[in-house]
């Protein structure tokens, strides 16, 4: 089991057919990420890094080639199984935090847990996670719109962790934060990585990328 990489991409191509000609967003990407790595994916806009991110995040399947998450070929999965894989194996942290506006901070963290286990949290795990990212129970009772950007991103980190995912997938996690808050969030991610969590992060900020052990450059749909 330990020999299976968390993520394995093999000659992945993603082609968007357009009238003006096919767009090769990914043009033969092969990539292996082992458990416990902290990988930064960098590249200019339009380079295909978002497409790569969507492949790793199981939001999309490749046109050609294979993407394996914990050994599972996502190209063969149904929408239902793909959704379950996102829920159970991947923790998302987005640039725009993407908390659910109708739910409180606490409920946002609890939500993936409820989806997975079909019951509300009675173990105290949700609040423990919130405490670990610095959100106390009083703050956790607020809706996202009542929280600062930094607080929202902390809640998002707690939400990403709640189902014990194999992969923490961060899309420009500090893109909407000031530099001080950015540092705090990055320290938090680095900490999680030191605890053994696999972290993959898309960024165009070199300072942020320095937290990673490995940096992958994407250019024109290929690894540069």
């Amino acid at each position, binding site marked *: 089991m330990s020999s299976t990489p968390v993520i394995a991409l093999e000659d992945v191509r993603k082609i968007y057919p357009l009238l003006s000609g096919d767009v090769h967003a990914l043009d033969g990407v092969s990539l292996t990420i082992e458990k416990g790595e902290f990988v930064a994916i960098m590249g200019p806009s339009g380079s295909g890094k978002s497409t790569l991110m*969507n492949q790793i*995040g199981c*939001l*999309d399947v490749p046109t050609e080639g294979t993407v394996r998450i914990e050994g599972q070929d996502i190209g063969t999965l149904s*929408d*239902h199984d793909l*959704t*379950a894989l*996102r*829920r*159970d194996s991947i923790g*998302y942290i*987005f640039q725009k935090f*993407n*908390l*659910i*506006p*109708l*739910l409180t901070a606490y*409920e946002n963290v*609890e*939500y*993936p847990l*409820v*989806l*997975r286990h079909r019951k*509300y949290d009675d173990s105290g795990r949700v609040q423990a996670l919130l405490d670990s990212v610095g959100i106390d129970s009083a703050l956790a009772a607020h809706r996202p719109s009542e929280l600062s950007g930094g607080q929202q991103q902390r809640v998002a980190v707690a*939400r990403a962790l709640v*189902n014990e995912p194999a992969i923490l997938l961060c899309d420009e996690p500090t893109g909407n934060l000031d530099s001080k808050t950015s540092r705090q969030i990055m320290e938090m991610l680095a900490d999680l990585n030191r605890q053994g969590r696999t972290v993959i992060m898309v960024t165009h900020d070199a300072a942020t990328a320095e937290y990673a052990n490995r940096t992958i450059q994407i250019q024109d749909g290929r690894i540069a």
Partner: protein
Amino acid sequence: MKKPDIIFQLSMRSVRLNLLRSVLAALGIVIGVVAIASIGMISANMTLSVTEELSATANVLVVSPDAGGGGGGFGMPGGGSGGSSDDEDDYISDDQFDDIRKAAGSSYVYYLYSESDSIETGDSKGRATIYAMDDDAMTEILTLTEGSYPSTTSQVVIGPDLVERYGIVVGSKVTIGDEDDENGQTTVRVTGILEERGMSMDISSDNGIITTEKFFTGRYGGEGEYAQVNVVVDDIDEIDAIAESIDETLNKKDDEVRVEDSSRMLDTISSTLGTITSFALAIAGISLLVAAVSIFNVMMMSVTERVREIGILRSIGTQKGEILRMFIYEAAIIGIVGAGIGAVLSLVIGYVVVFGMVGTTEYFFALDSLANIPEGMIVGALICIISGVYPAWRASNLDPIEALRAE
């Protein structure tokens, strides 16, 4: 304490967040449910009320001449009978009356003359049915609220509807017939007023004038030629046997008479009411259709506004089916709340319209009447849910990547 399903909670909160919009959409359902339930209740109350009125004379068999002369006739009087001693068949003869009496056993049997004629009283003119029967039947069948039964040819008793319409009192004079009538005009005096009998098959006395036999045959002729014969059956369980016996005795060779009980009249009225009700319900249905369009619109707005949220929900592992459920719940909440409010209002508005249209709320709380409220509710809520299906399906089939990109 058990918390409801988290998907349901999201639907609840979405409705609450857009409360005004949701309430306006629900208003359509409220109006639709009230319209459908009220019309249903009016119909049910009318049917119950007619049934009740007719059941007062449920033990009466009405024997009338079979003018059609059989199944294929055109209803023309005197058409194609034959063989019988009474060749005319637009009346019932004395001989036939005796036969009916024999066939009817111990039942009370009486004959009735009737003609429609113009009447005049004071400055008012109108029409009424002029009846006559023998004196014994008059006291047996008819009840007076005031005055006395007619004893001479110039005396009549009169039905309560005419009394009300023309302001007749005991002692008033009524002129029967037109000036240019071949029978001329006859003025009679009202000596009594009949008790209201409501709708019945044997004799429509509420809108009638009852004269003596002598007056009637004197004016219209045709002595011994009766318009109908009524058989008041002692035991209602024997009504079918007696009807059959009359039928067998009189219709041996040809169809001379028709024997009917009140159930036939009830059938006719019910089917007429049914037609009117269907038509009214179709119009009420339009209000539900409008409501469906507004629910559809609100649900589409809700989906469009929440595209990004749907993207988030999908990306963190919410299944298509769960998104579908979330929006169906939202439509269902609007529908059920609307239908619930509609039900309460139906009770109030229904009571008022039933009183106005039927004239009595005696049957309002009968099962047949109240059943229209849950029926209306179910129809309203279902229409709401069905209107939400397409928007929910759209939401559940959004591409998560596209949806996440939305602003």
